[in-house]
């Protein structure tokens, strides 16, 4: 039975702790999130932030240590089977089926896991393969597909049961730019026009979250730092100044900026091919930025270019955490 709920997905003070012999890790730290019906909700954060842990709890693969989570009005811990009837999970980079079976055979098999009749399954499989543009691979063995087509198969598998809530865990991981774009477009169409379903998407690609999501929650080390529409999140940064500076070195140390008053945060992207580093610095006002430039010149670094940047979701992350996603990966 499906009835109008206030929220399609709701978590309250969700905590998940992993214990091993060597260490204890708090993967989720009092996460409270509410997602409405028909919403495309993004969970954005670096690797190890807790995104997959969160999605595993909501898809009944993991129990929370404490707190509550409801999907479609059902408690994920106590009413797992009811949750499973209305959801689907598509994980990027995962094996979407059996290598020895063809694409259509794999899809037929998975349709049976959701109790579809063979005739309905055949129609749905044909439609999905046409919509996702890989009908010519129907009889190809899955082991022979490229990564892009495997992921299309994965997505088709996830949509077979026409879920009310679709969970996407890094769905474009490992895909090329064009395939990723097509996939994102398809998911938005599915959610907004075709099915009017709810989507919870985890990603560490900011452009993806920006492009697809009605709202985005930024997560870091298990905690939600901010949650709002991408536009609103970026608007909040307008009072700050974001400058992009390219310098002629990949070895310089920029940690002095961490101690500078008025520097909210910064990120760095090093390019070994061009031997340059692109810094993105967020400051309270332009006078502080001139002090940053002076410090860079003291290190005898050649400034190749300076320009003002529009705030992005990464800047939102930097303003909250003080560092970019790249630093997170190294720490």
């Amino acid at each position, binding site marked *: 039975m499906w009835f109008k709920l206030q929220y399609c997905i709701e978590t309250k003070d969700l905590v*998940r702790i*992993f214990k091993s012999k060597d260490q204890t890790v708090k993967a989720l730290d009092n996460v409270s999130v509410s997602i409405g019906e028909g919403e495309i909700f993004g969970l954005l954060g670096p690797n190890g932030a807790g995104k997959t*842990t969160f999605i*595993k709890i909501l*898809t*009944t*693969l*993991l*129990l929370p240590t404490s707190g509550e989570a409801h999907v479609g009005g059902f408690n994920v811990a106590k009413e797992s*089977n009811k949750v*499973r*009837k209305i*959801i*689907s*999970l598509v*994980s990027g980079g*995962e*094996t979407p*089926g*059996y290598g*020895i*079976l063809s694409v259509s*055979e794999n899809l*037929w*098999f*998975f349709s*049976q*896991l*959701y*109790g579809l009749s063979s005739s309905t399954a055949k129609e749905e499989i044909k439609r999905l393969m046409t919509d996702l543009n890989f009908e010519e691979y129907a009889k190809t063995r899955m082991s022979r597909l490229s990564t892009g087509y495997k992921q299309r198969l994965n997505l088709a*598998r996830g949509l077979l049961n026409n879920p009310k809530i679709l969970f996407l865990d890094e769905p474009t991981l490992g895909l090329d730019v064009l395939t990723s774009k097509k996939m994102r477009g398809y998911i938005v169409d599915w959610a907004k026009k075709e099915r009017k379903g709810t989507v919870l998407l985890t990603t560490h690609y900011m452009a993806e979250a920006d492009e697809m999501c009605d709202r985005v929650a930024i997560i870091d080390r298990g905690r939600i730092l901010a949650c709002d529409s991408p536009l609103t999140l970026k608007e909040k940064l307008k009072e700050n100044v974001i400058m992009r500076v390219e310098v002629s070195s990949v070895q310089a140390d920029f940690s002095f900026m961490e101690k500078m008053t008025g520097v909210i945060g910064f990120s760095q992207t090093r390019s070994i091919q061009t031997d340059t580093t692109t810094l993105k610095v967020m400051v309270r006002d332009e006078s502080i930025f001139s002090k940053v430039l002076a410090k860079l010149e003291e290190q005898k670094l050649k400034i190749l270019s300076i320009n003002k940047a529009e705030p992005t979701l990464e800047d939102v992350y930097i303003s909250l955490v003080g560092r970019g996603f790249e630093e997170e990966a190294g720490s």
Partner: protein
Amino acid sequence: MHEQLVHNLKVVYARLWVRVKGEFREPEWIAADLVIPLLTLSAYVYLYKMLNAPSEFTGFVIIGGTMIAFWANVLWNMSAQFYWEKETGTLEIYLVAPISRMAILLGMALGGIVNTTLRAVVILVAGTFIFQAPLVINEPLTALLMFFLTITALYALGMLFASLFMLYGREAWHTASLLQEPVYFLSGSYFPTNSLPFFVQLLASFIPLTFGLDGIRRVIVQGEGIANIWLNLVALVIFIVVLFPLAKFALNYMENLGKKEGRLTLRWQ
């Protein structure tokens, strides 16, 4: 309830279909399964012949070899299935779907029965014609009943082991390996168990295969009837009645434990 049953039967059929389809995609196993199962059995048959043992011992070996093919099917196609799915990355897809775990296991085991049955038939036929095993089937229905109950009890035991495999990685894999030769020995796959010391026989009585093998041998090799093997039938029914609910409980328990400890879909552990 009816809808759920039909749904789960579809799952059984679908998993069975995948298994059978996959097997016939690479049919190299067919030639191997027609000849090779006889090899170890032949060694034991020749050993009995060298010792001048009566011909009924040849029958013991042949029946034992036939039945352990089914035990191997249970062990590797059913018990190890969740471990297998986890390692190939498809377990998550099953666990998120609204289906019975036992349906998946049953489908896989039934799918494996195609090559298991072929193997068993080859052993039985070759054993009879090449080694002149003295097989006498006075009560074929009794033999079939015995066989059916043995397989059912083994499947229930297999589901119970599958719950361990769901959570544990290589430990469970090696535990399954450990359940081959020791079970063959304890259940008397190649010799009558009444020759074993009492405490060993007691241990063997916890294995459904022991009662199944003994019963089938007595019917097919020694020509006994249902009146003589009723105790074996009762024992197998008890196994079935106890093991199936235990397996369901264990599967639920281990799944929840895996979800609590975060190890359910963790590979390479």
